[in-house]
């Protein structure tokens, strides 16, 4: 077992355990922290296969910026309370999700197992192990830069535009509009929830009546 494989496996355990943590932790803050764990693990995996630049921005952008953004939002909105994982309003969603996830995993693995060789055309610019005129291996950043600013320059520009639009959009949406906010439209779920609450209330009232207690006060209790 080479160092490479060892590193990969170690990082892999970090990644997978982080991912499971994200899914299972009731508190979004915990989930965010687990996500950071996963992202760091991924960064390590990048390093293993010589994607140095990507590993760097994985840490800087993802872990540094995106997850922090998540945490900001969680804190801003104060939604850091635990989600009740015991109930599932949509009937059959959870088993279906697990079956689907399992099937997805199984099939993907089956596909990987059944494909024995790699095929595919080259992209126009550069192999990973390209060298300069002197025969020295090119730094990863240089290679990536060359590819991005030649072959993919149009995509790059468009991405820039996309980011700008996203920022503008985010600002517009998150802006606080003066005056009262339009409440969310009522949904079927709301109705069922209210019905359930009402049923519970009337049940309580009945119980209270049985016990000879005033209904209103029971409601307040």
């Amino acid at each position, binding site marked *: 077992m080479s160092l490479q*494989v060892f590193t990969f496996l170690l990082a892999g355990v970090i990644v997978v355990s982080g991912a499971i943590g994200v899914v299972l932790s009731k508190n979004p803050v915990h989930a965010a922290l687990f*996500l950071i764990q996963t992202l760091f693990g991924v960064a390590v995996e990048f390093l293993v*296969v010589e994607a140095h630049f990507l590993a760097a921005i994985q840490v800087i952008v993802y872990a540094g910026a995106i997850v922090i953004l*998540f945490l900001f939002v969680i804190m801003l909105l104060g939604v850091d309370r635990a989600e009740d994982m015991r109930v599932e309003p949509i009937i059959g969603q959870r088993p279906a999700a697990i079956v689907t996830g399992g099937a997805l995993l199984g099939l993907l693995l089956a596909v990987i197992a059944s494909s024995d060789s790699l095929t595919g055309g*080259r992209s126009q610019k550069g192999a990973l192990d390209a060298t300069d005129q002197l025969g020295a291996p090119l730094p990863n950043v240089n290679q990536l830069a060359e590819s991005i600013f030649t072959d993919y320059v149009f995509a790059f520009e468009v991405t820039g535009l*996309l980011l700008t639009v996203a920022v503008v959009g985010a600002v517009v*949406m*998150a802006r606080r509009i003066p005056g009262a906010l339009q409440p969310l439209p009522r949904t*079927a779920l709301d109705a069922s929830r209210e019905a359930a609450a009402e049923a519970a209330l009337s049940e309580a009232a009945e119980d209270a009546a049985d016990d000879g207690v005033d209904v209103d006060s029971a409601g307040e209790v």
Partner: protein
Amino acid sequence: MGELTHNYYLVLGAVVFSIGAVGLLVRRNPLVMFMCVELMLNAVNLTFVGLAWGLNDIGGQVAVFFVMVVAAAEVVVGLAIVVAIMRRRDGATSDDLSALRG
């Protein structure tokens, strides 16, 4: 166990992707759902990088670069939406937003 091959990355990617997918389907908190989406994106990134290595082609890494940018944009917009929703209803879950029911 021998040498590291791109298949390791593919398997890892598949596992993380599936976990992300299950999380997305199971969790109701929109923020956590976003995190699961990030997991899935990262899983894809892993396969890209792994294949770039296996195929000895920088193109895979370029793709990852773009994925990251798009992920950043997506998170920005998505979180803005979450903020906008949460302002209207505190502690809303994704199931509360079912106004498009047929």
